[in-house]
């Protein structure tokens, strides 16, 4: 079963993020949205996030005046992209 994992709250630290995503495996799909997008702007989270097929909802970055950090492995998507991702996966898990 293919699963789209989503996260809407930022972790307090890289270790906290690892704990939250403990059941995910490398190359699983992870979408950051709402307040969680701030993690894609912090180099300290890059290493943990690099394991996943990572997407970030671009409107949530724009709303907060942010941009992806350099070397971020994330791909920016819009709401249509979110719908497409949902369709490509059989299930969704909100962490």
């Amino acid at each position: 079963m293919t699963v789209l994992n989503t996260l809407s709250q930022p972790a307090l630290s890289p270790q906290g993020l690892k704990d939250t995503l403990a059941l995910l495996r490398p190359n699983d799909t992870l979408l950051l949205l709402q307040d969680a997008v701030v993690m894609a702007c912090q180099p300290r989270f890059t290493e943990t996030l690099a394991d996943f097929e990572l997407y970030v909802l671009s409107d949530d970055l724009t709303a907060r005046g942010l941009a992806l950090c350099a070397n971020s492995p994330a791909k920016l998507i819009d709401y249509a992209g979110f719908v497409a991702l949902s369709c490509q996966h059989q299930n969704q898990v909100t962490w």
Partner: protein
Amino acid sequence: MTQLAIVYRTVPHGNSKGREALDLTLLAASYEVETAVFFIADGIYQLLKNQQPGVIDSKDHIATYRALPMYDVEQIYICAESMQQRDIELTDLIIPAQPLEPEQLRQQLFQSKQVLTF
């Protein structure tokens, strides 16, 4: 001794804590309660320039931070360590804030009569 300290520690727009904290800050200041504000951890994102909350249909409370000096809220502190962790500079902020190391910040905070955290 500061009468009231208000601590901002959450990212804006995903919840209303930032706006509530700001409402309380301005209200307290308008009643001449001596108020200090502290931006720590993810709360420092509250002060970023160039936010466009309208894009996600969120009410824009960010511009209102500029009113703090007009309400005589002059003690605006921001955690230097949190800024470094998040790659944020003083020039990225919508208003001037005084950066403090965690130990100084703790001292300022613990000198306040009342502390409210959002």
